[in-house]
């Protein structure tokens, strides 16, 4: 007993320190925001346009991610691993968001690779709501593709062989067999990607700017409000916290169990 108490204590202290570091800031945010301050903060003119924009852009981005990412993940899972290609696709996860923002400008900006072509078509992408969606998709979609690919790879390939033998076309195999069976994992991956898009800051700021109502999402609104009105920043933070918590509970709770 005595001999094991030392290491146990040390492990407890180390783990406890991190646990405290993870929980305390959130606690401070909640404790430090009384209902009156929350109401006052939410009345700030930047709040509701940012809420609306964030919900709109992340929803559109999530739909695009699912629509484009699911076939990509399926394709990746059905072929022998091409490590380099998958690493390339996962790059936006590890590259700093600011770098993604600069890279997007280099591609779609006025002086970018596609800039002249876009200008000829009368389109201007940077500093629009579409740019917000684009930035969010680029940083968040890899998370979905990664988990969807792993989920598809984990399925028994004999199920697909049987489905084909019964007369199912490849698309029917995907829609009728692979997606329904992988659904819990796909929902999990989609939720993580959505949360990442909701918190997107760096790439959005550089590529889409910080225009209230057009490109100012919730994280950008927090950043802007912080300079003038701490209560508004606090209030928006609490809103984002509640949204994220709801998401986490939905994932760990009935939704995940219900479809599994």
């Amino acid at each position, binding site marked *: 007993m005595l001999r094991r108490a030392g290491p146990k204590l040390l492990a407890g202290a180390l783990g406890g320190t991190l646990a405290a570091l993870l929980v305390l800031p959130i606690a401070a945010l909640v404790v430090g925001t009384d209902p009156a301050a929350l109401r006052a903060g939410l009345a700030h003119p930047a709040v509701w346009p940012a809420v609306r924009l964030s919900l709109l852009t992340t929803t559109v981005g999530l739909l695009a991610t699912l629509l484009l990412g699911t076939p990509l993940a399926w394709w990746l899972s059905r072929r022998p691993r091409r490590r380099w290609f998958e690493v390339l696709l996962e790059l936006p996860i590890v590259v700093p968001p600011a770098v993604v923002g600069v890279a997007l400008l280099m591609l779609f900006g006025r002086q970018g690779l596609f800039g002249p072509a876009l200008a000829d078509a009368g389109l201007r992408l940077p500093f629009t709501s579409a740019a917000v969606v684009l930035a969010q998709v680029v940083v968040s979609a890899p998370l979905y593709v990664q988990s969807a690919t792993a989920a598809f790879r984990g399925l*028994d390939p*004999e*199920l697909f*062989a*049987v*489905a*084909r*033998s*019964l*007369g*199912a*076309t490849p698309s*029917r195999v995907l829609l*009728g*067999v692979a997606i*329904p*069976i992988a659904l819990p994992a796909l929902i999990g991956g989609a939720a993580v990607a959505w949360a990442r898009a909701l918190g997107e800051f760096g790439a959005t700021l550089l590529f889409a700017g910080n225009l209230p109502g057009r490109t100012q999402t919730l994280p950008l609104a927090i950043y802007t409000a912080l300079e003038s009105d701490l209560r508004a920043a606090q209030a928006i933070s609490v809103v984002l916290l509640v949204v994220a918590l709801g998401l986490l509970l939905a994932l760990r709770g009935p939704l995940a169990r219900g479809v599994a």
Partner: protein
Amino acid sequence: MIDLWVEGRVGGVDFDLRATSDDGPLVLAGPNGAGKSTLLRVVLGLARPPRGRVVVGGRVLLDTAAGVDVAPEDRGVGYVPQGYGLFPHLSARRNVEFALACRGLDRARAVDWLASMGVAEVADRRPAALSGGERQRVALARALAAEPVALLLDEPLAAVDRGTRRRLREFLAERLRALRLPAIVVTHDPADARAFGGRLHVVEAGRVTWDGAGAGAATPFVDDFFRAD
């Protein structure tokens, strides 16, 4: 009638193989990794040899020389894999309905198919809640519901306990005879080979080393296979 000719490298095995069965199922035995499952994939159209010809019930499904390669979903070859391959997210009934829907047949017949295999009472259960024998019968009902022109069974009795095995073997053998469908059965068990009738081919490293006609080399596997009987 089944006629297979596969030559060249497929699925990690170098094939140089001919196997035929005019009457009764083509029974394939052989050590693990000999290419039996790959052979089934070739018949299903899920793997393609450099050179080969697959004729099932008079229909040419693959003929590399003539450029024929029928898509898997159009081959009409029923398949019951080792683990039965039941869709885990669907009830027994919905598993059979999947097959009927793929072929544009009336979904209402799903329960009839289950009944014909003696498993109508488990129609609303998911595969996880079925016994090994029930799974096999549901898988067979599903394969037959798609109205196949041939049936492939990969180790149909490997996943059931000994007691069930004998009953199931008789059931399967009797069904195969009654259906008069061309069939390929992969097995590890000489008793299966005998029960299903037809012609036994021993496959080793992509070649037929014993073909039931008495010809062929007495390899260690062939010796063991018949001694185990």
